[in-house]
């Protein structure tokens, strides 16, 4: 697969942008592919709907936007409603289980879900929700390697919080592996 398109959606505060960033970083710096990450967010710093898009490719990426995402990660219903129609009919859809009802998708799309918020809260910090999602994504999509993803996480979070975040990543990763199995 020479060009893989990934779209991540949610609302501000969920860490949508950082998730995209980590995926892109893992792919480009640690897995040595080309990656382009772009983002869309609402009124400046606030908590409204936002999304990020990552393209991972073996070749140089000219057209930098996602048109038919192969993989989607949706963390809010609003984002799901807005973006899910774009999905590649044979793509995979990852959702936050408690916040998104994945109705209306074509049968050909594979859906994986995870109660990422609750997992994050159990870890003591709701904001690591996105790391849970990142782990989940890594396990399920197999676009980036686990090692690269872990490095990218450790590299991108505030110093001192690496462990917590890697923990969250692992929780998500495990959940992903289980889903694949089950």
């Amino acid at each position, binding site marked *: 697969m020479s060009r893989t398109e990934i779209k991540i959606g949610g609302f*501000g505060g969920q860490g949508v942008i950082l998730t995209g960033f980590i995926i892109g970083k893992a792919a480009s710096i640690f897995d040595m592919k080309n990656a382009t990450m772009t983002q869309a967010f609402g009124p400046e*710093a606030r*908590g409204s709907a936002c999304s990020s898009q990552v393209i991972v490719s073996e070749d140089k990426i000219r057209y930098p936007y996602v048109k038919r995402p192969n993989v989607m990660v949706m963390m809010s219903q609003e984002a799901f409603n807005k973006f899910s129609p774009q999905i590649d009919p044979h793509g995979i859809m990852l959702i936050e289980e408690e916040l998104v*009802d994945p109705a209306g998708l074509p049968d050909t799309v594979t859906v994986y879900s995870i109660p990422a918020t609750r997992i994050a809260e159990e870890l003591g910090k709701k904001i690591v929700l996105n790391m849970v999602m990142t782990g989940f994504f890594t396990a399920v999509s197999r676009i980036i390697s686990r090692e690269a993803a872990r490095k990218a996480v450790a590299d991108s979070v505030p110093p001192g919080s690496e462990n917590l975040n890697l923990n969250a990543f692992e929780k998500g990763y495990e959940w992903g592996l289980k889903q694949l199995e089950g």
Partner: protein
Amino acid sequence: MSVIDELQQAVKNSPRQSPGDEHPMSNFLRMDRIPHIWCPTCGIGTTVNCFAQALERCSIPLDDVAVVSGIGCTGRVAGYVKTDSFHTTHGRAIPFATGLRLGNPKLKVVVFSGDGDLFSIGGNHFNHAARRNLDMTVICVNNFNYAMTGGQVAPTSPTDSVLTTSPYGNFETPFNLPFLAESVGATFVARWTALHIHRVTESMIKALMKPGFSFIEIIAPCPTIFERKNKFGDGLDRLKFYHDNSEIIHGAPTKDVDIGLRNKIIVGEFVDIERPTFIESMNAYLKRRLGSDYDIYEG
């Protein structure tokens, strides 16, 4: 049971809005625009409640009130109050308000904006409007940073604050806003925190009813940025901090009320003086000089 189901359930059990109910402030707020854009536990919404309450309690007809904001998180206030409301450019709410008020002196003009908007880019307009004693009430939500753009250091950020453009700690000295306001001629100057909801409301009423240039500074939590970057917790933690660390000294010399990052915050009504407003002076001078060639200006 998923959150969604749980919620459906909760809706039934809980004292939620019933069709007949209306938010008591819906005459003052554009409820069709709620939810607003402010973050969870942000203090701005609270100050808007106080303002709505003040409007309700003072006798000014709502149709005569106009709210003007600049740009910023606080600058969005104009978008949520159900009066004639103007969301202008960054820093320029005061000169817009000047034109609005002089264009129609029947309007009660309130400028509601952020500390960066009013005192960084907009500082000069503040100086001059106060000097002229233009009829307007300026309400500044001071969250010690440029929140809308993601948390840069502001001219109000206490020394030592960590923000995105003061990553190693702010080494500048912030303005002491009440002192500044007094020195340029404001006739009413008060400061409160977002926790002092009743005090804020009362100062707002005083300011609204007083002719001339009045200024209210409201310290409010910005949990997403200022509190987070400085490890002050969330909005609730911050309200608790205000509770423990604010001291009311009405009439305190403004020179002494500067704010440190972790120090006591002096609040209260500091200045309350009388002098003729811009329009009063204008009418007096022009009438004296032009006599019957001049009609007292009323809009």
